[in-house]
């Protein structure tokens, strides 16, 4: 298990968080300390243990294909940071993936 060496700048990019260099350093130290604590998990005998998928085992919880009233559009768009007519307006997308 790797310990302590989290590439904060890379992870911040994945998480779409802009961080200052000072933050990158500060978080790096703080999270490094957490990861050191987390390292103790390496000592647990988990090879034959199943990962918990859900703490209360259930399956097949579903709903019938029956319509339910939707939200009123004005309510929805009123909350939008920016709207244009009936649409949410978002800043320009540069690449095919943002």
């Amino acid at each position: 298990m790797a310990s302590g060496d989290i590439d904060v700048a890379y992870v911040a990019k994945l998480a779409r968080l802009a961080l200052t260099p000072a933050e990158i350093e500060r978080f790096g130290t703080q999270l490094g300390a957490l990861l050191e604590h987390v390292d103790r998990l390496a000592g647990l005998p988990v090879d034959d243990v199943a990962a918990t998928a859900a703490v209360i085992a259930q399956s097949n919880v579903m709903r019938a294909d029956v319509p339910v009233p939707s939200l009123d559009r004005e309510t929805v768009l009123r909350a939008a940071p920016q709207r244009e007519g009936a649409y949410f307006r978002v800043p320009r997308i540069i690449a095919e993936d943002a």
Partner: protein
Amino acid sequence: MEATTARDIARSVNAGETSAVERAAAMLERIDERDGAVGAYLAVTRELARESAERVDARVAAGERLPLAGVPLAIKDNMCVTGTPTTCASKILANWVAPYTATAVRRLLDAGAIPLGKTNLDEFAMGSSCENSALGRTANPWDLSRVPGGSSGGSAAAVAAGEATVSIGSDTGGSIREPAAFCGVVGFKPTYGRISRYGLIAFASSLDQIGPFSNTVADAALLYDVMAGRDPMDATTVDRAVEPSLPGLREDLRGVRIGIVKEFGLGDLDPEVRAAYERAYADLAALGAELVEVALPTADYGIATYYLIAPAECSSNLARFDGMRYGLRVEAADVGSTYEATRAAGFGDEVKRRILIGTYALSSGYYDAYYVRAQKARTLIAADFAKAFEACDAIACPAAASPAFAFDAKADPVSMYLMDYYTIPMSLAGLPSLSVPCGYVTPPGAAGPLPLGLELSAPLFAERALLGIAHAYERSTRHAERHRIPAIPVSAGAR
């Protein structure tokens, strides 16, 4: 107005002795007087309270008998209530008004509870002191220089300060139990899946649960009975009948086996704190309980396990806060930059830390070593409890290692995480668990006595037995009656 219980108020309103409107008005006045100093509320919903109270009075007049008729209720601000700002104490949602109501809240309101307002919390429920709120500061009514605990600090403080008869909070790793202990009130987290999470703004999906704060175990049982049960809007709610817990309240503990956890030895605690817990264990025995030593060998792995799983889930749950459809937007040249600027400005440090560590734990190359491994550790922890419960009916331990600490006392994040030592393992196993007042200590420098909480935990779905045990303990020890909160400086004018 003396502090009265939800049960008393409901009985009184149903009997026509008092009206919901009167009770609401009185409580709102109390909030106006005290909340300037306490800061439990982020928003007081006067109009909503008045309308709800009028509706309840009309229903009672028409002959209905409501389990929570006229009971003044405060709601943690990570739960959606239609028409109310629902902020999670975060800048990123500071102006967001919820268009729908959480199922658990709706059930309480349908039962006659009166919503007074939304209470403060650590931002997105991440924290153990309420200091991570970006929108306000909540003080512990027992000592205004100390924290109320977290993350449901506002809900706990509101009840402790008499600014609500009951309140609801959410608990992911201890966020109901720890502030309940710090504020000297009852705080109860049911089995995972008992109460719907629909409308509870998610922090860690496999751990979050809503639960009540109250002055008595009976009130907590009452609220639990109203809220619990399958919800078609939440696929993780369990399809299992809810046995009403109120009838299960008992007066003694004869025949009950209480587990004392070997790994939770009291030796490292401050002597005054240790003495209080030793007394609490003795009190349980005096009620007829058999104290049994049980082992939780993986207890020490709880924090490491939790601080991988919870952040991983939260990193995904909080991705939706991106400035596109609601909430704060910090507009930049393009979508990518807008995401980054919005989330940088909108989230506080603790939230950012957890998003970062969570993203890391899920990322390619680390997923197996961190996230999967933690879920395996979780299996071991749950297995430990299952084994322990073969020998006992409930486990007793401290809810926290110390009473409420002063603001800024725990600047280092990991030292704050360690506050959840006693509560995290039960969360990981999904167990029902509560904190009930069990005494007081007066540390050097404290203005007066500070409450301590006894944590009681039971097997999955054993809420009825758990509440029964807690009630017996509470009724016999009557700790809540031994001290009052100090006088709170009155603030002029409405909030």
